[in-house]
């Protein structure tokens, strides 16, 4: 597995820490942020190959964070995580520059494939909510 540096952004702490641990087992370097301001700060301060961002978070929404990230670091691809009801958010997110979106619960192999595509600059294969 490539040694990607990934920023995971989700307010569901148990979910995101477990996912982070699983990605680390697979050789990725993981940084976790639990809200928008922390994520934006991390993205300014540290180098990342890819961001995985939950769309629905309290406070600053995922789409708002996406917009700001695309302004400050347009080079870093962003993969959105959506709930089932949020397909519209995923589509809107792609319009705003997200690489793709996946629906929770995610399949880790699918996420890894999506990250690889994003980092290596390949066109996204249809995901649209797995």
């Amino acid at each position, binding site marked *: 597995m490539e040694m990607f540096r990934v920023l995971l952004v989700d307010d*569901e702490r*148990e*979910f995101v820490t*477990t*996912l982070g*641990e*699983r990605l680390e*087992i697979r050789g990725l370097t993981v940084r976790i942020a639990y809200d928008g301001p922390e994520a934006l700060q991390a993205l300014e301060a540290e180098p990342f190959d890819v961001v995985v961002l939950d769309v*629905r978070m309290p406070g600053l929404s995922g789409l708002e964070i996406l917009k700001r990230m695309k302004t400050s670091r347009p080079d870093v691809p962003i993969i959105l995580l959506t*709930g*089932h*009801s949020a397909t519209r958010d995923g589509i809107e997110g792609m319009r705003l520059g997200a690489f793709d979106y996946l629906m*929770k*619960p*995610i399949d*880790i192999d699918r996420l890894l494939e999506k990250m690889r595509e994003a980092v290596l600059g390949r066109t996204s294969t249809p995901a649209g909510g797995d």
Partner: protein
Amino acid sequence: MQEHVRDDAAFMGKITAGATHELKNVFAIVGESAGLLEDLLQAPSSRDFPHRERFLKALTSIRDQVRRGTHILTQLNRFAHGADSDAAAVRLRDMVENLKALSDRFLRQKALSLTFSGTQGADEVTIQACPVSLQRLLFTGLMALAQEVPQGGSLSIHTGAEADGVWCRLSGQAGVLDEAAVGAIRRCFEEEDVAALLQALSATVSVQGDGVLVRLSRSG
């Protein structure tokens, strides 16, 4: 739909949609936690872990159930969002998939299987209708049919478009319904609330030996 009924449906829909969203997060955490345990058990250092195979088997079962639960929640969430509006473009294929997932429990009580046989002519058959009312009408037809077919039988749903509307056929095996069964299903659609539903949707129903045909007019 009457205004207070619409408000009640919208309220139920909103609460259900919110709850399904939360439950999906619960499943996401369960799924990731099970996945992490699998990862750890697959590591070479865990080869001698006692009961390793039994743990892995149990984790596979958890993963399968997470997938099953997620599917039901996804469909329940879509159903709940049907109450967001009393007139929307309804894709029949989606509605049938929704109906299939959410009626499974009821059909299993008679060991019935339900398949979607696809859409005639076009992939996308849509109609402007109240999603909750339409779903209720199809559910009524499905349950009436299920009541009359023999235990362990199979049912199918087929949809299509015609000149000024769409149709949805709920079928059992050919010739499965005798006259008494056809009469019983017809009576379901004659009940006051169902008749009102048909009228509100500009729908007609015909019941024959192989099942129920629901027609919805676009011009209604």
